[in-house]
């Protein structure tokens, strides 16, 4: 008996370490990045592409350096980060709360679900100018635009997770005498957690896009405003540098979420049913 347990435990950990080797992975990634940068630079140097259109890695790096050295970027970066943070927090709180309400209340769900689909199908970016009209050119209109994107993603991914909860786990818990509150805490919520994490990451991406695009429509400060002025001056390197900043910001936050996810969802890895 103990032998079985031991060998299966080893099997699980062996399966997990496949593809581990972090050092070689990092080396391969660095090589991949170098190839992209060299190809880019090479395309410009050989005259295959025009630096006026696609810039060069070196000038993008230079633009980045200037943006940070002069501290020119910080007020704008601050505004954008603030908008993203508020919109993300609101999307997460209201998205999850709405999903829980709709999951527990089938009657309400049946009434509002076509409206949710309709709202979610609207190209909200196209509503941007209207949001500016309604909420002014301050951060409110950007938060609303970003929230209008993030909220539905959070709502739908949480609701999806809650809806497909394993009936056997609910029945078993009820038979052991679980209250509705405990069913939520011990079964429904953990079951929805993988869906919630997938939603969190998408929501962050969409909230960032919403905030920056909102700023590009009309704003007093923010990375979107800088983007508009750089593209107005055909400063391709500046535009790319700003986009890189947003991407790095989102990637950093995403990897923090990945870290939390890996700790919380440790149980879902190394299944004996499905290798890998």
């Amino acid at each position: 008996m103990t032998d079985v347990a031991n060998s299966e435990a080893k099997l699980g950990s062996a399966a997990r370490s496949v593809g581990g080797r972090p050092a070689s992975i990092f080396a391969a990634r660095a090589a991949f990045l170098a190839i992209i940068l060299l190809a880019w630079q090479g395309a410009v140097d050989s005259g295959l592409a025009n630096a006026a259109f696609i810039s060069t890695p070196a000038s993008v790096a230079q633009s980045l350096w200037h943006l940070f050295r002069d501290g020119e970027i910080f007020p704008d970066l601050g505004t954008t980060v603030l908008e993203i943070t508020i919109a993300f927090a609101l999307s997460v709180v209201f998205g999850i709360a709405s999903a829980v309400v709709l999951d527990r209340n089938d009657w309400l769900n049946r009434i509002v679900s076509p409206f949710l689909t309709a709202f979610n199908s609207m190209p909200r970016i196209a509503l941007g100018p209207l949001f500016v009209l309604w909420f002014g050119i301050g951060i409110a209109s950007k938060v609303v635009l970003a929230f209008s994107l993030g909220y539905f993603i959070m709502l739908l991914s949480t609701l999806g997770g809650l809806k497909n909860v394993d009936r056997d786990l609910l029945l078993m818990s009820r038979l052991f005498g679980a209250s509705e509150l405990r069913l939520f805490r011990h079964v429904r919520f953990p079951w929805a957690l993988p869906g919630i994490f997938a939603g969190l990451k998408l929501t962050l991406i969409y909230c960032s896009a919403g905030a920056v695009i909102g700023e590009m429509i009309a704003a007093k400060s923010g990375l979107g405003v800088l983007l508009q002025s750089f593209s107005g001056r055909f400063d391709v390197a500046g535009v790319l540098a700003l986009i890189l900043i947003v991407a790095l910001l989102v990637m950093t936050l995403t990897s923090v979420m990945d870290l939390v996810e890996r700790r919380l969802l440790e149980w879902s890895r190394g299944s004996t049913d499905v290798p890998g």
Partner: protein
Amino acid sequence: MNASLDISVRGLDVNFGQARNVLTGVELAVRRGEFVALIGASGCGKTTLLNVIAGLVPVAAGTVTIGGAPPVAGRGDICYVLARDALLPWRTVTGNVEYGLELSGVGREERARRAATYIDKVGLAAARDLYPSRLSQGMRQRASLARAFAVGRSVYLMDEPFSALDSQTKLTLHDQLLGLWETSGATVVFVTHDIGEAITLADRVLVMSKKGIGVVDEIHVDLARPRSAEALQADERYHDLYRRTWTALKASAQ
């Protein structure tokens, strides 16, 4: 009423709110501390009868009492072991065994102590920190048994808990279930399709009719306890009972 009677079903009709009865006039009497096995053709209403006793399916007619009280889902003195192991994937073996205790209102320290004891009893001590995704079917079913018996209920309802296991693993689990049951003194109703399993485990094997009219035959298993699943394979009386049950089962499917 007979004081030693634990489960009493009289004139039970079940129809799931439809015109046609699934069960009609079913009678069942199980003594306190008795282990009965229910066998019968697929669709004859075994699971339905367990569900009625567990309070999951409404009674159309007749009376059902468990320990003198009517069935209610989530009663504190009944434990229903489902065919699927229903382990929480995000809890380790220990966490899953503690879960049943937690829902039964057992305090933290007592939970840990009892969980460790019962995990030991089913031979999962080495796997106690593993998540269910890392366990074999047999190990999962043992964790589910440990969870069930750790809460110490007076009635156990089991619906084909070992149906997904190979016959070798089954024998091990039979011994472990008998070990758990013998020290618990609980009343058990155990549904199975496996005649050998029924005889190995039960005091009485009840054969249900295919027609949905409940128990039509019973075989008293007068094999001495404690029993060993493996030793029984070599026992002539076991094979004799097997043949009698087989004949009764065939007759019930006519």
